[in-house]
């Protein structure tokens, strides 16, 4: 379980990183918490790895009255520790502290998690429910791509050759908004096997189901029947669909009662 040979490039500016990404079979690495095991298993075999985790253009966070912007290199730990701006009720911190284990949170990044697009990961589902978008830097300049469309499927995102995610932009829900997030894992920190996020904010009533084997499912409304119908096409067996429906029901209940984030394994659902 040792990686095949690759060339590691460590640019110091975004421009250099974008230049390096033009190399054939080049791939971005940030915290490496998903990519490094894939390299060791030789499931990923890039010729060139471009390390972007410490690029100044991908670091930092800012906020306006309406939006929070997090550099793509922001670690889960930084978010969990409250070192970055957060949404009302500490939504982001509560999600981040439930991601994997501390050692992984210390290095894993929000941008890396989105680009890796593991269906069982937290950010694709959560940020889809929050109506977030990503700032994409590429040879032709920067563009913005909205979630969930950016997540094209399991481990697939809508990035062109030579592009990388520079930042994540999250609109702030209003003060009266309601949020619920529930995930079920075999153990705290393991990959989730059911997950749902619900945002109720004025006219916005957004429900997202994740950990389904493909891109997160954006529900057209918040009824359980809709969730059930949407899951019919997920390929999950009856037990798997049941868990997803219950995760959705519980996320919805949290949003209804304003109890926020929760996780199935090891944490009380309504904490």
């Amino acid at each position, binding site marked *: 379980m040792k990686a095949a040979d690759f060339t590691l490039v460590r640019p110091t500016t975004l421009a250099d990183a974008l230049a390096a990404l033009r190399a054939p079979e080049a791939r971005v690495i940030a915290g490496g918490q998903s990519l490094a095991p894939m390299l060791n298993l030789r499931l990923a075999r890039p010729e060139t790895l471009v390390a972007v985790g410490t690029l100044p253009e991908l670091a930092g966070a800012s906020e306006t009255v309406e939006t929070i912007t997090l550099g793509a290199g922001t670690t889960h730990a930084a978010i969990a520790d409250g070192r970055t701006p957060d949404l009302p009720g500490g939504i982001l911190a509560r999600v981040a502290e439930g991601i994997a284990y501390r050692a992984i949170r210390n290095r894993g990044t929000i941008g890396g998690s989105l680009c890796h697009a593991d269906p069982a990961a937290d950010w694709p589902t959560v940020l889809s429910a929050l109506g977030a978008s990503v700032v994409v830097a590429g040879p032709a300049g920067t563009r913005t791509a909205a979630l969930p469309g950016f997540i094209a499927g399991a481990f697939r995102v809508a990035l062109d050759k030579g592009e990388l995610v520079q930042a994540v932009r999250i609109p702030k829900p209003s003060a009266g908004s309601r949020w619920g997030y529930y995930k079920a894992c075999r153990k705290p920190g393991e990959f989730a096997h059911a997950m749902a996020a619900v945002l109720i904010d004025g006219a916005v009533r957004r429900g997202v189901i994740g950990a389904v084997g493909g891109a997160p499912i954006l529900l057209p409304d918040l009824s359980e029947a809709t969730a059930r119908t949407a899951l019919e096409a997920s390929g999950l067996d009856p037990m798997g669909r049941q868990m997803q*429906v219950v995760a959705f029901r519980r996320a919805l209940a949290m949003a209804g009662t304003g109890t926020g984030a929760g996780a199935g394994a090891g944490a009380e659902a309504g904490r």
Partner: protein
Amino acid sequence: MDVIEATGSGVGRRVPRKEDDRYLRGKGVFVGDIRLAGMQELAFVRSPVAHGILRAVRKAPGAEHAVFTAADLAGVSPIVANSGLPGFKPSAQPALAEGKVRHVGEAIAVCIAPTRAAAEDLAEQVEVEIEERPAVTDMLDARRPGAPRVHDHWTDNVFLETRTEADLSAIRARAAVTVRRHLRTARQCMSPMEGRGVVAEWDRRLEQLALHTSTQMPHIVRTGLAGCLGLKEDQVRIIAPDVGGGFGYKGILLPEEVVAGFLARHLGHPVRWIEDRREQLAGNANCREHDYDITAYADADGRLLAVDCQATVDSGAYSIYPFSACLEAAQVGSILPGPYMMEAFRCQTWSAATNKPGIVPYRGVARAGVCYAIESIVDDIAAAVGQEPYEVRLRNLVPPERMPFDNITNKHFDSGDYPACLRRVVAAIDVPSVRRRQAEATGPVRIGLGVSIFCEQAAHGTSVYYGWGIPMVPGYEQAVARLTPDGGLEVRVGIQSHGQGLETTLAQVAHQVLGVDIERIRVLHGDTGMTPYSTGTWGSRCMVMAGGAVATACKDLAERIRRIGAHLLQVPPDQALVQGGCVVSGQASIPVADVARTWYLRPQELPPDVSAGGLEVTSGYRTTRDTGTFSYAAHAAVVSVDTEMGEVRILDYAICEDGGVLVNPMIVDGQVIGGVAQGIGTALYEEMPFDANGQPLATTLADYMLPGATEVPMLRIDHMETPSPYTEFGQKGIGEGGAIGPPAAVANAVNDALRPLGARVDRLPITPHRVLEALLAAKIPLGNAPVGNVLT
């Protein structure tokens, strides 16, 4: 126990572990820490398919010298672990595959390079041509006529079939209760923190192979390895440095050890192979996979009349050295009755060959599955007669007044009070309070209570193992005790401490006998060049057998010390005794260190009739009866079951165990806790599934779920101490027990929670998926929603 010991370091004391200083400071030396000059790394080419004809292996062009296949291993014999039980079919496990591959991960070729990464690069370039055959992946399918054969020259896929016969017709006619279950336990991967690893070096001067390997039985590896390599045994030295956990996974002679041993000699420079997690999970030996079709007959009071069982064990493709492919299933046939009395017992077992890695005994051997089977069926009896499960057990347990007791399969229970043990754990878990909470829990989260009780044969010797006829039979256990010139004590044993704290507990035993300061006692193990022959560390035997051997050697040494000391004190030998690290006669005394100095450095002062053997003795020990000690324990678990999500949580867990006299109760607690953690893994998490083609599906630790800190609740441990009448201090083997009780206790608790809903899970591990599946099968509307609302 007639032991008087005032220093706080002897038998029965909670002495902090001597070895922990180096472990906790990161100063241990494991195989992976060994660096030898000129050492090269090995990587294996492994079979990508479960079953097939090996047509060709093509080495990477230009790198032929660095790639070896079976054809290159001149003079190497396959690993053969036969059993003397009638009807056993032998298998030959080649060091590198020849002719056929029989499981995914089987080694086909080995590549050598300065780094592991480069060796893996080479391995990728080796082309393997395999004509795939249908794989046998299920043990019951394997037994069916017409199944593809794992070993072509066999007539079926059964290593061994055993029968314990009894005529049950009369019992069947009068039994008020008949209950039957089909149960299955998952195939598991033993997962010590340190995997396997080998560093092999050929010593030209000594004409000897020095093989550093992470093993729990160095002497047995030496015997087996010498045989495979065609070397004389004195040409092989096995060194096990610090070993990071074993549990049975390191009680195996590995093909990789054979290959590394051959290459070190052939190439003339050291080679190293360090197992990675994928090799451990997808290629090497597994454990635990049992299938039970079990029926029990009882009277209207729940008194057991008979048990009738057909048990199959998925033994995998090869009989693993030295325990063989049949130990597990044959043991099922002899230990299934558990701690209970019954009138009749019938059992048929099969050790089925499949296209999966071989299985080996894992902590508790067959008992974790057996306890799950018998304790599940006892719960069914309780349900049938409408009594608390523990009440039915109390009616059937062997009572203390009948100890020692020969049970229905002629197991000789040495001592104990099984009913008292169960009553204590029942009191600890507070059954009335749990039943109240259970009645109040009417929502989606239900509460369940489960108990289990078992007894465990340990440290069994010649008379038991002779009958199995496997490559090793334990006899006398030996130890060397010797004083150094400055009065330190060296104790040398052939067993291996791989986390159990034996460097401490054996020092406690030596201290108990000689009184030498425990800081000055050094326990040496893990090197065939330094220690007396031993079958090693397995079967919870070390504290009984090596403990007894160390005590015996120290007593023999004490006699030598006493005679010299008496001479120095100018008293007759019968007026002196060894006590507290001194030779004492009345008010006069002389330290053992002075006696040592006299023997080594001032021989002119020795008595004329001194033993020429000096202050070094090798002594052998066996228990006064070698049918084994029987430690026992009762476990009780309270769980919650989320019937919407299928999640199980352990809310409370209590244990009462009796390991006889405990040499170090703190270490025993640690053993129980670690064992229970593994038992919880068996109950709720660990499973290596295979697809229909024999592909292993949990090949990383993201897929193979091990319990961690958050899955193991605070355990409440209560001790009883009934001495064994057959051992040195009354101690019993206790190392494995923790892993045996949890699958039964947790499964019974889950099923207790599900019973009002008419659902039951009959398969381990109990995953959320299986809980929901059971509710679905019981036509329970999942999630308490109206019928048909959720799943349609």
